[in-house]
């Protein structure tokens, strides 16, 4: 069964550093998402991406965040200057674009900002 792949599985960084989280969505899927989950809390929407542009973004997704689909397979989330509160599990998801939304999630990247 095809799956969404995320790398790295764990990322440790110093406060103020830039990080790039990488995702390979399922081939032929059309919609892409980033969510995050702080330990013990609920899954929070960050951003959705379609047709090479952002479709929707939440209040969390401020100017320090950006997303990119540099080629036909990768989907990246960049955090420009990490803060302690950015520590969370970041999930990428993709959607085939059929009539009803059905998200396929990756296994996540655990980001720890020290």
């Amino acid at each position, binding site marked *: 069964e095809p799956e969404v792949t995320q790398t790295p599985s764990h990322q440790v960084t110093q406060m103020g550093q830039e990080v790039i989280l990488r995702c390979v969505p399922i081939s032929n899927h059309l919609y892409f998402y980033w969510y995050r989950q702080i330990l013990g809390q609920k899954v929070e929407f960050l951003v959705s991406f379609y047709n090479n542009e952002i479709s929707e973004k939440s209040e969390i997704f401020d100017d320090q965040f950006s997303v990119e689909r540099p080629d036909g397979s990768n989907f990246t989330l960049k955090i420009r200057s990490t803060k302690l509160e950015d520590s969370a599990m970041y999930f990428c998801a993709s959607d085939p674009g059929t009539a*009803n*939304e059905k998200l396929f999630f990756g296994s996540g990247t655990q980001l720890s900002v020290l």
Partner: protein
Amino acid sequence: LAKTTQPISMDSYEGQEVNITCSHNNIATNDYITWYQQFPSQGPRFIIQGYKTKVTNEVASLFIPADRKSSTLSLPRVSLSDTAVYYCLVGPSGNNNAGNMLTFGGGTRLMVKP
């Protein structure tokens, strides 16, 4: 977006049927109801989706009454491996709503005991 309300937690025993009910009083006409399962340190996984009446797949059944203001996820004969958090999401369908901000609530933490 329709807000959902679920019990925070439920306990069950192996072999029992578990029913988790979700309230979504302000569901819109074009909204679908989708349930996801999440194990610790993993991304949510799609379980089942429906619009009205009853939907059944190899994993679960979804019961939706005529007014669609609630839905019930039914897990037949649960096992220890069904211990997870279950999320009910409500959101619009259709490709003209590309990249919808699907919002996860707190979910229901199901604990299956031996």
